[in-house]
């Protein structure tokens, strides 16, 4: 316990174990918030005729936080293909006039991708907004006598049509199917960075092994029964505990903020790979007598591993089985 305290209660240790993740979190959080913003349903409204009524309507629709609306002048179906938007609504010319005349059909064309999920919600919202205008226009038309006078029953039936069960509001509907091969959204590469951070922790703690060796602590302990072994085991326990606590913290934060989509088996592999890294670096410390050489070797290995993972994840390199000698591939392959 005395050794554990002396290892952990050091400014540089606290900075490495607590400060660095906090710093990373502070850097990552704005991106997480941005991602949260991006959970809004992104919709494009295309008005090729630049109508002021449409602009006003989009402003009204934008009041709802669930949707993120963009008003554009041209239809760009590539955005649907890339998944930049959930759906595109193209408005017809003279929309305001048609609404004021009470037209409910073919005011818009709705483009959606086969993978669009929640654009239907926006369609309902758009329809209800337009229907509000249509009903109010119709009411105004009746009151101001713009329409021909009719009997009470005729007016009643006319108003009732807006509440009949059939779809009141209809629009053209087109499903957009992409010809491009679907690219699976497997953004698991950040887990390689988590592993790299754990390697950094292990390398940081390896400095004790070298310090104890250079100071002759191991030699002194060698004259006691299992003295040297005990100190080694204490070191392994401290580093292992630190790794496991860090992993638990990472899992908690990841589950809370949904940073990386990982299942339980991947968490297990991350723990396994981290423990293997600990054993490798520990064994290396017996062979390599210079701490700087150990740092250089582990840094080169870590950087190459992470770089390869990124290249494969970004389709700039094809995965090959021998890449499994780089531990992060165990996490992402």
């Amino acid at each position, binding site marked *: 316990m005395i050794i554990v305290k002396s290892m952990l209660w050091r400014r540089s240790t606290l900075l490495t174990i607590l400060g660095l993740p906090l710093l990373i979190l502070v850097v990552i959080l704005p991106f997480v918030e941005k991602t949260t913003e991006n959970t809004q349903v992104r919709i494009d409204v295309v008005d090729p005729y630049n109508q002021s009524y449409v602009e006003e309507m989009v402003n009204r629709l934008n009041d709802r936080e669930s949707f993120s609306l963009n008003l554009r002048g041209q239809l760009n179906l590539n955005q649907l293909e890339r998944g930049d938007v959930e759906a595109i609504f193209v408005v017809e010319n003279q929309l305001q006039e048609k609404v004021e005349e009470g037209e409910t059909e073919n005011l818009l064309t709705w483009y959606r991708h086969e993978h669009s999920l929640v654009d239907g919600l926006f369609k309902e919202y758009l329809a209800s907004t337009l229907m509000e205008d249509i009903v109010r226009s119709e009411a105004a038309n009746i009151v101001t006598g713009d329409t021909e006078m009719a009997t009470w029953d005729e007016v009643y039936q006319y108003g009732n049509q807006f509440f009949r069960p059939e779809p009141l509001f209809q629009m053209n509907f087109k499903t957009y199917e992409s010809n491009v091969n679907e690219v699976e959204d497997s953004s698991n590469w950040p887990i390689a960075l988590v592993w790299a951070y754990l390697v950094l922790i292990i390398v940081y703690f390896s400095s004790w092994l070298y310090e104890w060796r250079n100071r002759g*602590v191991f030699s*002194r302990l060698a*004259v006691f029964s299992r003295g040297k072994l005990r100190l080694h085991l204490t070191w392994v326990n401290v580093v292992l505990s630190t790794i496991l606590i860090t992993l638990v913290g990472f899992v908690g934060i990841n589950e809370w903020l949904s940073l990386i989509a990982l299942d339980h088996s991947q968490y297990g592999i991350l723990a396994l790979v981290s423990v293997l890294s600990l054993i490798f670096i520990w064994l290396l410390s017996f062979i390599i007598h210079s701490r700087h050489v150990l740092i250089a070797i582990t840094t080169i290995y870590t950087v190459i591993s992470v770089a390869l993972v990124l290249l494969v994840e970004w389709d700039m390199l094809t995965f090959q089985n021998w890449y499994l000698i780089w531990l992060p591939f165990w996490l992402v392959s």
Partner: protein
Amino acid sequence: MLVLNNVTYKRKKNELIKNISGEINQGDCISLFGPNGAGKSTLLNLMAGLETPSSGTCENKSQEKITIGYVPQQLALFEHMTVRDHLTYYQKMTKQTNQHYVNEMIDVLGLKDILDYQVQTLSGGMARKLNLAVGLIHEPQLILLDEAFVGVDLATKHDMLTWLHQLNEQGSTIVLISHDWHVIEHIAQTMWVLDDGELIDRFPISQVDLKQREYSRYAGSDLRKMFALRR
């Protein structure tokens, strides 16, 4: 207690120790003396069991296992631990239950007032005292000191020698490496002179004057210079 039979030690084809034989008995206090590179530290490591002889044997001739207290040349201490933490850690590791002995050692070495000091804040002399205390905390039968007095002032040297003298009188065996004539003459009973890995001479400390005159004839040798420094 410990018998060396033609002990030879090679490292990377270099013969660091050449056919050394000798006997260390209980209560002895032997000073290994010689120039740098003579093989003193290697011989001490062989006695401690930290190295294995390439040939020959280093045997314990007593019936039971000898407890060894090894005090290395470096300050083999944990930098961020206090003096108290060190003593507690080694006391637990060696299962030392004789608190009276530990307290007496703390008193004689003058460690009482610095128990809560971290090693990194200790003066060189205080750190040397702790280095010695840690190596002797388990009341070892054989005490091996590798230049344990380097850089200490006279007061510190006094405390350390007093404690070692007391242990030696109580039956502990001491083998020390030192270039300090004051230390050697204060505590050693016998001198083993090494040069280039060989044990070239051994004599009781009472003969040191005679040996000084003898070595003064070795013109140009390091040993002549070392003996010449003795007044």
